[in-house]
């Protein structure tokens, strides 16, 4: 209960801040029906809340640290774990410092791994609960591959081959291929810069003591750089490329909220703009042109775009009845100049210079929750969303892979309107047992898809029982059925789909979900949790397409605190998903069938032991193992299994922190990762294995990598 939390000794916040924190989750609290304003606060002696242990100190506090580490960067993928892909010695600094004055002003600097690609820093100043300004930086790095090779190098909007390149009809007949290979780095670095702040206060200093407002404004600029895997082709000859990425996103978020006893209202708005430094990707063909003089190809890149959103919401209630209303409007626009339909030969005239694309989204949410009696509560919610593509429909010339003029085609304007209704009731039989049941209906209207409308209805029931103070368990079952209007394959595609095909996201489906969960908590520090879940999807009217998916999983976790300083934890999680598909080689009823069996296992264990050697040493170790694999088998009379598709990983994360002086400590981190993956699609291939695909070859990883870091900290 919230009141219990309020009286907890660690509630060392000012009341104003606490109110804001809670108002931030107000909508959720409303949904659950335990609204804060219901608490009887008349008898509370707020002055007794002052926290002796965390009495705010003025002056400086915190720590600064410097890290020197050895990082194995041979395979950059390990960097996703360490935050840097540098091979060898690397350095970073960290800080967590606060400066406070007696009057309540506070300035905080937090820095983490600053010096690594994935480092961050944040400077905050102001009076918490009244106003605050913050300035921040955050680096995010995603490393995919650094060991792939290709003859291509990038230069602005161009992907070029060496000057002495000699084209070939096939990859095997390119004499310069082997000698021209250069390393390719497929990683993406994101640098985020944030500035923002808020101002908050009471609406009327003399009036209702519980009415507040808060206005905030935040701006974020994100630069993205790096390269991603892409492919390009002219006719049937294709190349894999490390396409350079250089773009930026600017976002502004502004909001004003008001709240008082039992109510909250506000508006918020976001504006964002995406800018791509590249206008197109031109690439030099490695192949001898099939027709004419097609030595260059050109692909479009992500166009510049803008979006904004305005939303308003209000919630309130009394006597156990609560209502939440939300309405929002978003608009996304895109008017980047088109690139020509082809650069090989005269390009046909385009019907417009830009797409002048516009998509509007209107959304609305209505929620009611009420406690009818002491034991019975109900909830109802209605969501409405309308996506309206207002782009003009035009006849565009269709040039297939820069080569063949296939006449013209119109752009499809996919619209979607969703209406969701949910009704739930919860009845508490005793303090240890309750039952919950509900009904949901989800109606979707589409345009230009094979089905005009798809509706799903479902019911669920949940039974929860606390057997003893230590043991509790709940069981939930849900059944859903999806159907819709007549299935009528679209005729706008160049090749019509098999009339028996039912696309899985539009097909009739029966779904059954069962979840069983149990918790065991003792007062000797041991807690256990286990759950079992299954989902069965039956696409009962599908002849060709996805026909059945069955999913089963369990997880078990345990924590044991042997003492205040020694903690153990372990977990196991396994999931299986089998998907059955039927296909037709003769464009009719099914004649081949495939089964994809996916399996994932996650096992982990660890411990931490603190305050050893007279509070001088903390040590800890975590180990985890994950294994994900997929086995696909196609049966077309003869059974043909696909090849390897898996990823396996062992991780060790160990540390020891030794405090060798009152304010100085040294920490040693050892990270180890053993990683292996394989994908039959490129396993064992080379640049020239396929005559018409100049690929990166085998893209699998197989490495054992270590990180050893020494961090010296100074406690202020």
């Amino acid at each position, binding site marked *: 209960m919230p009141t219990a939390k309020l009286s907890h000794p660690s509630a060392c916040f000012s009341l104003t801040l606490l109110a804001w924190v809670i108002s931030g989750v107000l909508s959720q609290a409303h949904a659950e029906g335990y609204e804060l304003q219901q608490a009887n606060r008349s008898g509370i002696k707020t002055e007794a809340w002052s926290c002796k242990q965390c009495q705010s100190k003025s002056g400086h506090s915190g720590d600064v640290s410097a890290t020197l580490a050895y990082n194995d960067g041979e395979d950059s993928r390990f960097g996703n774990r360490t935050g840097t892909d540098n091979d060898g010695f690397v350095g970073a600094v960290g800080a967590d410092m606060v400066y406070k004055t007696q009057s309540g002003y506070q300035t905080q600097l937090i820095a983490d791994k600053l010096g690594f690609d994935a480092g961050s820093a944040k400077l905050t100043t102001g009076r918490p609960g009244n106003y605050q300004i913050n300035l921040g930086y955050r680096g995010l790095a995603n490393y995919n591959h650094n060991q792939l090779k290709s003859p291509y190098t990038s230069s602005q909007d161009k992907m070029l081959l060496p000057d002495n390149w000699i084209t070939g009809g096939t990859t095997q007949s390119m004499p310069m291929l082997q000698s021209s290979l250069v390393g390719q780095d497929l990683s993406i670095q994101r640098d985020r810069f944030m500035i923002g702040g808020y101002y908050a206060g009471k609406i009327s200093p003399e009036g209702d003591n519980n009415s507040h407002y808060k206005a905030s404004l935040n701006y974020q600029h994100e630069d993205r750089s790096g390269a991603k895997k892409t492919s390009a082709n002219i006719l049937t000859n294709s190349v894999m490329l490390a396409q350079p990425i250089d773009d930026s996103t600017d976002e502004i978020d502004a909001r004003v909220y008001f709240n008082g006893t039992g109510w909250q209202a506000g508006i918020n708005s976001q504006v964002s703009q995406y800018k791509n430094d590249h206008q197109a990707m031109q690439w030099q063909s490695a192949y001898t042109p099939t027709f004419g003089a097609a030595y260059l190809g050109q692909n479009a890149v992500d166009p510049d775009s803008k979006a904004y959103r305005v939303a308003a919401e209000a919630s309130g209630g009394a006597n156990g009845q609560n209502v939440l209303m939300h309405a929002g409007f978003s608009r996304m626009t895109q008017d980047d100049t088109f690139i020509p339909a082809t650069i090989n030969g005269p390009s046909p005239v385009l019907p417009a210079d830009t797409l002048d694309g516009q998509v509007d989204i209107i959304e609305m949410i209505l929620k009611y929750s009420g406690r009818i009696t002491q034991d019975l509560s109900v909830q109802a919610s209605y969501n409405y969303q309308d996506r309206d593509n207002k782009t003009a429909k035009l006849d565009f010339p269709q040039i*297939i892979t820069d080569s063949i003029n296939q006449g013209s085609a119109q752009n499809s304007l996919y619209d979607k309107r969703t209406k969701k209704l949910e009704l739930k009731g919860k009845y508490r039989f005793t303090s240890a047992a309750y039952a919950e049941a509900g009904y949901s209906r989800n109606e979707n209207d589409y345009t230009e898809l094979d089905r005009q409308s798809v509706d799903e209805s479902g019911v669920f029931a949940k039974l929860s029982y606390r057997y003893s103070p230590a043991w509790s368990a709940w069981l939930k079952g849900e059944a859903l059925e999806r159907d819709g209007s007549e299935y009528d394959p679209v005729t706008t595609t*160049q*090749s019509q789909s098999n009339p028996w095909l039912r696309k899985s996201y539009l097909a009739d489906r029966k779904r059954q979900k069962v979840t069983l969960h149990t918790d065991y908590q003792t007062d000797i520090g041991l807690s256990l949790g286990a759950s079992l879940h299954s989902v069965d999807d039956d696409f009962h009217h599908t002849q060709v397409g996805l026909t059945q998916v*069955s999913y089963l999983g369990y997880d078990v976790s345990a924590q044991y605190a042997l003492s205040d300083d020694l903690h153990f934890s372990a977990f196991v999680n396994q999931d299986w998903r089998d998907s059955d598909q039927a296909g037709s*080689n003769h464009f*009719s009823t099914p*004649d081949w069938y495939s089964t994809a069996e996916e399996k994932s296992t996650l096992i982990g264990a660890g411990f931490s032991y603190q305050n050893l050697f007279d509070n001088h040493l903390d040590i800890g170790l975590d180990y985890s193992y994950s294994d994900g694999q997929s086995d696909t088998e196609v049966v077309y009379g003869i059974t043909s299994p696909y090849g390897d598709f898996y990823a396996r990983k062992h991780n060790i994360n160990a540390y020891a922190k030794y405090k060798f002086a009152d304010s100085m400590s040294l920490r040693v981190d050892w990270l180890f990762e053993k990683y292996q993956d394989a994908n039959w699609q490129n396993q064992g291939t080379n640049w020239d294995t396929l005559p018409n695909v100049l690929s990166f070859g085998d893209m699998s990883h197989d490495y054992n990598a270590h990180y050893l870091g020494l961090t010296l900290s100074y406690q202020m």
Partner: protein
Amino acid sequence: MNKFAKMSSKFSLMLALVSLLSACGGDNGQDGNPGEPAKPPALTITSLKVTVDKVQMIDGIAQVDFQVSNQDDEAVIGVPSATFIAAQLLPQGYTGAGNSSEWQHFTAETCAATCPGSLTDHKNGHYSYIFSAPFNGMNGVTFMPEATQRMVVKIGGDKLADNTPLPITNQHYDWQSSGDNVAYTRNLVTIETCNSCHSDLAFHGSKYNQIETCVTCHNSKKVSNPADIFPQMVHSKHLTGFPQPISDCQTCHVDKAELAEQQNWHRVPTMQACGACHTQINFPAGEGHPAQADNSNCVACHNADWTASVHSDEDKTAALMQFSPSITSASMDANGTVTVAVNLMNPATGSVYSDSADKLKFINDLRVYANWGTSFDYATRSARSIKLPESTPESGSNGIYTYTIAGLTVPAGTEADHGGLAIQGRVYAKDKVLVDCTTELAEVLVIKASHSYFDTAALSSTGRRTVVSNTSCGNCHGDQKLNIHGSRNDLGGQCQLCHNANMLADATAANPSTTSFDFKQLIHGIHTSQFTGFENLNYPGKIGNCTQCHVNDSAGISTVALPLNSAVQPLALDNGTFTSPIAAVCSNCHSATSTHNHMAQQGAVFAGTKADATAGTETCAFCHGQGGVADVLKVHPIN
């Protein structure tokens, strides 16, 4: 199904297996007695029916159990010989991305005086054959139990012990290890489609007469020359002399629901199948087409819809469906001037073109021909015609316009007879629609010509005898797809308007019949490779099978039967002589001197006076007439 459900279903399957085992507990492992109850023995045999009951593998060796019965489903016992062919089908894409399914020959074993395996006659119409050795490894082919297997049983071509001849019969049976429910097939064309032009195809001493048999040997595992693999072989054999546009794949690859893979012709393009017609292309060398090492890329450019659109008349047919001219009334005055009313329809919309032909710019040509005298095969060899786009109608409005055709020859005393009319034309079209003649890249399409008959007062259903029809010609030539003189394609009634008995044969020729442009002489001469210019024509069917072209008359009797229709005129020779009608038409094919002598002895007149040639002295019908000892309907291989 989730894991638990799977486990439980496996468990129930185990239970079922256990109960099955106990149910079969008393089985001694021997085969059951095949063929209960027995059929009565066959008394006469006009056709044979082979039914394959099953194929089972015993220690890797196949045993095929089959029954033989006659047309009345009576058991045929004592079949003296049989051939068994076994092959296996690899599925589409199995031998490489983009490859079609492919047959693999195991063996062909024949049991006659000697037998490599063992053939058992169960003496009740049931037979069993055990092959000489396991299929696996035979002919270098690995036997795959899950693959579609084919067993062909060929019997006949010899006689039972009592000298009853057995017709040659091929029967195939597709199976796989779990029974006859095969996962995939390769059924592209039916023999009926072939035989619509070829009559009764049979090869290798007439032993093999079904496509399903041909493919079991004409595959890469049996023939040494790749050009003899079935698809390539059949495509290339039809490249020359094909009697209709070769580019329309659906002439042979007909849409038939029973053919599971009927759409392979446009859905599974391969360099082997396509290259057999596109012979100027060397795919691996990159000559005539970008180099392609294999079939994996074909569909990337040649998608199914594209291939279908360039190899079918779909666009043209759609455009032609928008124009249909017809003659709605006709009459003739005493001067031989015919007045016809012409109506121009759009059948696609059901509406009428309100303008007359001279104002419709999508019409390239539209002509109406007229000739008189249907009861005596027309009065003149040059029928009168008018060109509608160049003629202003005499009268008319709203889609029906009247024209006159002057100067028909009406011999005295034939005023009560009938005349023939034919209408033919061409239109401009582009992208499935009719377009103005000035449209760039417009294509000129020939419409289906048609004919009608009239008397002096009105259109009439009575007219010239119908001997051949567009349907019967279409069996080989397609539905009015054979255009002669540019746009004449109504072979059933239009050609005869000019190609009639007024045409003169070369009297100096060894066989004058084959030199006349009179329709019956011309057509017989062409299809027997005797007419000048057609010496290389290779008639695809049995030339003696008259009904491949000839239709029945209104009484249901073949128009080949004697006596001939009284309208048939004697053959006119260019020296003023005549040959009597039956002799003239029969001698076109039956040209030996001895045969001529036989005809002359029986009253035929060769190169005599017109009076003699029309005196009715021919007595052919006495023996060759219907029911006669040598009825032409019986002595010809008509079926």
